[in-house]
């Protein structure tokens, strides 16, 4: 539920053959993909060395505490520092949406109807300080994320773990979370209060990174966390620069998902998007070795690339599974009437919305809630065909049937931030399109810092909002459950079931799917559920964003991973 994503020490080679397999495997996976680009040929075996420069808008003000970070699949930069029980498959294309082992030997053994998950750690795992990583460290890292002084991470563990809803973290009088057990230093067992077939995906989040208790500095840990990944922090000035150097206790022998080619990664923070685009496009000097982890290419550079093949060759595209949609509060008139909701579904002009995003290269119209980039959970449907530019006649007919023959006037709440997916450009496009169907849309711009607080509070939620939703991991579960599960309606703030929709049969179906541990079957079932819910017109899916990103001319093995829709910088090289 990544709303508005924008808007992330040396082990001796245990086995030479394992390392060779890894290098060969990653190079083949990356080199064989159609999305792979690179100035010259890339060889994973000889890619090490040099300094990769990263140009980011993010200021990283909140630092790098794995308990506080809210990433999808471990993010970009955090994944260079933190290894987790599982991680995303470092592969271009659809395979990049699969979950694979990281610190653990497999993606988890499920038992007792997917309510108990057991993981065994690989041997020889060490932190950047040379100490061994144990299962107790992973437990402690998770426990920290329950503390109110380290709030901000994903909510799933609190909901899923037995006793999670009342546990206050390891700093209080009751520091132990009994639903996580560590029978030995290499085994960790999770006891869930309900079946969760998607648990291996969650185990890729940074909350599953090990934290040595002796080095925990509470709130101050975010400035200098102990690394378990291929890099460690050399210097970190929030808002200015983060410099990463090799963790000498890490090796490819125990990590099949990170190539870690550059010797050093120099991340410039707090840059403006215009400057990042200029620097990457011009690719001069050190900027030839530069990449970004958070800035899409601007429309001017995209247009210029059409006539400049050398620039076009440095563009890479991909998708983060997200949906921008019209959210109806079905507890509020007139959207308690399905006919009105259907009328809105017919009236929208998706072409104008896509154009407001910069055109078809940057956005794709959507008639399903699950976007195609979510993989198996995408089942195509279009129950209220609006065509490319809206079906005003059908919308008027439905409004008349609903008791509004002369049309109606409603207020649309949207985020005032101009760069937001649910921002002013979309609101204006919707206003124009709905007017053709006799719907007068009054616009209510809510300040970016307050938008979620107003819209996700059941007491203040407007009748109609423009909203966007992204997947914490590429599965139907985090995409559909918070939005349509009636048990997830949170009174007060933090409610994302904006329809405030509740149906026991849907909830029973959600529980049934959560028990499926065969991922392809689970995703197919999520897709069926989406297709079933779509008939109720609880939302009007509008479009999904296409990420187009640029890199410097000397950066190789670049691809946008299909889990997050951004560069996977753990695989790129400047040699």
């Amino acid at each position, binding site marked *: 539920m990544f709303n508005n994503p924008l808007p992330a020490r040396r082990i001796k080679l245990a086995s030479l053959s394992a390392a060779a397999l890894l290098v060969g495997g990653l190079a083949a996976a990356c080199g064989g993909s159609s999305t792979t680009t690179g100035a010259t040929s890339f060889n994973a075996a000889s890619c090490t060395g040099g300094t990769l420069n990263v140009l980011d808008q993010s200021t990283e003000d909140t630092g790098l505490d794995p308990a506080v970070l809210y990433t999808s699949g471990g993010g970009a930069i955090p994944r260079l520092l933190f290894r987790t029980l599982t991680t995303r498959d470092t592969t271009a294309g659809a395979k990049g949406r699969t979950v694979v082992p990281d610190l653990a030997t497999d993606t988890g053994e499920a038992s007792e109807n997917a309510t108990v998950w057991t993981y065994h750690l690989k041997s020889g795992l060490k932190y950047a300080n040379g100490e061994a990583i144990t299962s107790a460290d992973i437990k402690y890292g998770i426990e920290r994320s329950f503390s109110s002084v380290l709030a901000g991470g994903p909510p799933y563990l609190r909901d899923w773990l037995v006793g999670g809803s009342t546990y206050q973290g390891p700093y209080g009088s009751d520091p132990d979370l009994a639903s996580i057990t560590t029978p030995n230093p290499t085994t960790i067992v999770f006891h869930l209060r309900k079946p969760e077939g998607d648990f291996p995906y969650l185990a890729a989040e940074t909350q599953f990174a090990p934290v040595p208790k002796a080095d925990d500095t509470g709130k101050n840990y975010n400035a200098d966390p102990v690394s378990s990944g291929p890099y460690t922090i050399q210097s970190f000035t929030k808002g200015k620069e983060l410099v990463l150097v090799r963790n000498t206790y890490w090796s490819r022998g125990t990590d099949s998902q990170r190539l870690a080619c550059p010797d050093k990664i120099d991340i410039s923070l707090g840059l403006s998007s215009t400057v990042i685009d200029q620097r990457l496009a011009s690719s001069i000097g050190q900027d030839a070795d530069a990449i970004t982890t958070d800035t899409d290419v601007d429309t001017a550079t995209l247009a210029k690339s059409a006539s400049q093949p050398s620039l076009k060759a440095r563009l890479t595209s991909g998708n983060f599974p997200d949906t921008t949609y019209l959210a109806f509060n079905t507890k509020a008139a007139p959207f308690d009437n399905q006919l009105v909701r259907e009328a809105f579904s017919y009236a929208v002009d998706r072409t104008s919305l896509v154009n407001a995003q910069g055109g078809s290269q940057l956005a794709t119209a959507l008639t399903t809630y699950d976007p195609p980039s979510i993989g198996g959970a995408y089942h195509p449907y279009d129950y209220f065909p609006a065509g490319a530019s809206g079906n005003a006649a059908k919308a008027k007919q439905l409004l008349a049937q609903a008791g509004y023959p002369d049309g109606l006037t409603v207020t649309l709440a949207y985020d005032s931030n101009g760069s937001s997916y649910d921002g002013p450009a979309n609101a204006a496009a919707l206003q124009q399109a709905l007017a053709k169907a006799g719907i007068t849309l009054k616009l209510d711009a809510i300040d970016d810092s307050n938008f*979620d607080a*107003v819209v996700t509070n059941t007491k203040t939620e407007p009748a109609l909002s423009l909203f966007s939703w992204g997947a914490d991991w590429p599965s139907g579960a985090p995409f559909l459950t918070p939005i349509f599960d009636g048990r997830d309606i949170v009174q007060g703030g933090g409610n994302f079931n904006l329809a405030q929709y509740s149906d026991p049969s849907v909830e029973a179906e959600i529980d049934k799917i959560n028990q499926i541990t065969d991922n392809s079957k689970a995703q197919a079932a999520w897709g069926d559920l989406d297709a079933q819910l779509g008939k109720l017109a609880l939302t009007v899916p509008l479009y999904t964003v296409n990420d187009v990103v640029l890199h410097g001319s000397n950066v190789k093995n670049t691809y946008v991973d299909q889990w997050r829709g951004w560069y996977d910088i753990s695989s790129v090289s400047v040699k």
Partner: protein
Amino acid sequence: MTAFLVRRLLAAAAVLLIVAAVVYGLFYLMPGDPASLACGKRCDAAELAQVRQTMGLNRPVYEQFWTFISSIFAGHAYDNGVGTVWCSAPCLGYSFQSDEPVTQLLTQALPVDVSLVAGAAVLWLSLGIGFGLFAAMRPNGLRDKATTFVGLAFGSVPIFILALLLLLLFCVWWQVLPFPTFVPFTQNVGQWAENLLLPWFAIALTFAGNYLRLTRAGVLEALGQDHIRTLRAYGYTERRIVARHAVRGALPTVATIAAMDIGGVLAGAVFTESMFGLPGLGKLMVDSASTIDLPVITGVTLLASFLIIVANTVADLLYAVLDPRVRIS
């Protein structure tokens, strides 16, 4: 003079107290909840209440304000989870976002603006006064009109456009300068200056037009006065008259405006910092405002207010030094 400074100091303390109170008041009147932002997505009411308590936002506003004021003089202990950390006086609290002491954030950001103003002020004063004199020596002639037009043109261009233009010209097309990044003066003087050259010129070109106009007007007014006529009668050259005598007529005004402009840039050059990626006070203020980071907002506002008060005081003192008719009392 001493009495004047003491009075100014007391007035400054009162102003800063009022500024802090207004910031706190506005913070609670404005929409947005920092606890909600810190709590993350899908944070229910109970979790939110806990986070609010951890951040100290559950206490009455007057209590929070008193803690803030008393911490400036006596320091304050903060709970970081595993223990308490002591924030020494003058303690302006800890950032809600970064959990760093606000005083540390300010001391990191201020050198950026000091560096910006150091070079930019020299440039804008040299360009403004120099071309102002140049224009005044041949009033209403071609060079006067051309100089005034160019000065006004640069002064009319928004600084973010000028900044982008300079970046394109010098970093992309001609490639004679690097894209700026802040290198501290103490680390490498050469790189410090090289990286700040474009920001300096961006500010200077925007400001210089005003100084050109002020200098030109002041000099022209002085040139019409009796003592200048007497000097001409003695056979002094026009260049000497302007450079040594008439310019004194313009200096008090220029110095007053310069002191206030310097204070303004020191207090944060938002667009310049943003376009050139310089982590100064302006950027800190914008970032903290967007994340409703009250301790940082208050800290930056107080420092900015203090710098502007100092600049105004310096302007008053300079006026007295440059114009013997004015006496400080």
